[in-house]
């Protein structure tokens, strides 16, 4: 187990900067999620920590030692690949035992450790199967077992769940969290699925165009995104813009949101209320109902405000009394106002 640190990492491919001066620390024993759209550099960062990508400049620390000049084989990492990369010519047990065989651990100790690892991922009876005989979820767990059996200093997961279907993915998320807590290894994973990032991470890092835009605990980043991209990328957000005045933000339809210093604000869809008549709340807007969507546990209302799309999410019963079309009032409380930096 070790703390992982990267400092000022820069990596350029031709014209594009895949990593643009990224500095980040990953706490020992923590579960860190790297989130971002494709091309954001999150996979490059993961591979730089692994050693498959050699940065143009900057440093990578695993524990106390800097490892930029250490080859992959010697970095003591465990990695799970997007396509699992199980060796097709070996059984499950041989796959999991491969890292131990490389370290010249054999015989009783190896058999025992392989068995323990397979028990941990609940695949004990499958040790003699070959990868092509396993389902996607089972292959994923073999890949996990193989990565952790060598007791690496850090566990790196490259979009580990993206190949699984939705129900299985949710189950595997719970599994992953359980396994990580049980062995307490520093884990860094990459995903483009923000829900997954929120579920699994102790700490989250958002990358865009090679830069680290925001990092922190999921709850903090969610309630305080600080910029429009993060607000939209992590969760949904309704962005309202206008001109800053002395007393607050003057929105385009004339409404004044007091105490706001920036040119835009964001309000999460679950924090807005719809009422047919004007409410007493200080923050309210007049909008047009466009669509009402029923999706089981929650429902979404889609509205139009000054040409922009506004979404409101709530339990379906909370929308009682709201018409399907026509003008309505939107409102929210002061602490639901999120100030968004300009530019």
């Amino acid at each position, binding site marked *: 187990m070790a703390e992982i640190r990267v400092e000022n990492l820069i990596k350029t491919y031709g014209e594009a900067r895949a990593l643009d001066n990224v500095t980040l620390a990953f706490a020992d024993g923590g579960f860190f999620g790297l989130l971002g759209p494709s091309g954001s550099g999150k996979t490059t960062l993961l591979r730089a920590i*692994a050693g*498959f990508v050699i940065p143009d400049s900057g440093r990578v620390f695993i524990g106390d030692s800097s490892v930029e000049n250490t*080859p*992959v*084989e*010697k970095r*003591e*990492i*465990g*990695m799970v*690949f*997007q*396509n699992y*990369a*199980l*060796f*097709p*010519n070996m059984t499950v047990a041989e796959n999991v035992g*491969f*890292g131990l065989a*490389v*370290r010249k651990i054999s015989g009783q100790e190896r058999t025992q450790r392989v068995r323990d690892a397979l028990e941990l991922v609940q695949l004990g009876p499958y040790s003699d199967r*070959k990868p*092509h005989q396993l389902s996607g979820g089972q292959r994923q767990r073999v890949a996990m077992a*193989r*990565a952790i059996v*060598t007791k690496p200093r850090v566990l*790196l997961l490259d979009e580990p769940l993206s190949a699984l279907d939705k129900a299985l993915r949710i189950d595997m998320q719970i599994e992953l969290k359980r396994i990580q807590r049980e062995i307490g290894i520093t884990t860094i994973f990459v995903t483009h699925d923000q829900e997954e990032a929120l579920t699994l991470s102790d700490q989250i890092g958002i990358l865009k165009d090679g830069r680290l835009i925001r990092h922190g605990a999921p709850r903090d980043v969610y309630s305080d995104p600080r910029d429009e991209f993060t607000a939209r990328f992590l969760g949904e957000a309704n962005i309202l813009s206008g001109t800053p005045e002395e007393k607050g933000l003057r929105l385009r339809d004339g409404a004044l949101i007091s105490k706001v210093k920036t040119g835009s604000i964001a309000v999460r869809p679950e924090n807005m209320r719809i009422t047919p008549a004007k409410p007493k709340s200080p923050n309210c807007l007049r909008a047009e109902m466009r669509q009402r969507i029923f999706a089981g546990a929650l429902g979404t209302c889609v509205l139009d405000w000054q040409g922009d799309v506004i979404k409101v999410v709530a339990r379906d019963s909370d929308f009682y009394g709201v018409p399907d079309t026509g003008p309505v009032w939107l409102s929210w409380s002061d602490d639901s106002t999120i100030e968004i930096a300009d530019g």
Partner: protein
Amino acid sequence: MSDLIARSDRLRAAALLSPAYIWLTVAVFLPLSAMIFFSLLSDVPFGDRTWHFTLENYGAFFESTTYARLLWKSLMLGVTVTVVSVIVGFPCAYVLAKVVRGRARGALFLLVILPFWSNSLVRIFSWAIVLRGNGVLSTAIDAVLPWDVRINLMFSPTAIVIGLVHSYLPYVILTSYLALQAIDDSLIEAARSLGAKRRTILLRIILPLSTPGIIAGAVLIFVPVVGSFMEPRLLGGRLGTYYGTVIEDQFVAVFNWPLGAALSFILLAVVLTILAIASPILRRAQV
């Protein structure tokens, strides 16, 4: 309703398939059967020659050790050429599949495969020019080394092996290349992430996964070489008597076709046996 559709489809399939397969039957399968029939005759059944059924052609194979020795010589030639080709060719395929990147790969691959499609006779002939005494190789070595070394590799088993390896090397490079290309890079990365060094990766992952390709190439080389006669004659001179040349003689010089047929059939049986042994390995790796 569905039965009718299936039947008209079947008719159409038959219509599309029959020309090709009838052709193959007439040109390959029937002749092979005819060959078996012929091998049991005492003389060619044409003109006004008398003939009867006999096993003496097969008997001739077992009577003296000559034929058996020559068959063994041809089999050994096959093994030698195959082994040399695999040892020389696999690293070449590896470099092509894993070291060369991008557009260069396709172009270099093509360059390696191209000679394969030129006339084998002409290529053997070119080796004759290079290897003979006072030939190009001899002159080149004389030019480089200070002392008088007269190299005459012509008309020797070495020349035959060189010529055959040259002709068939691209087969094993091709099949190995295809197998190596199919090995996903992420497998190698996974092995590295687990701490494996180059040698381990080669022995435990790359070689096992490319074995089917190597075996396929080996079969494509072994089979023709065992039956070869043109290369031994041109490059081996008096030493170039092999099982294949003996069979050739029966048809072209001696006109003892039944004996030739019998010897051919024995060769066919041996080759098919070897293929039968190799095919489970090929099929098992079809994973």
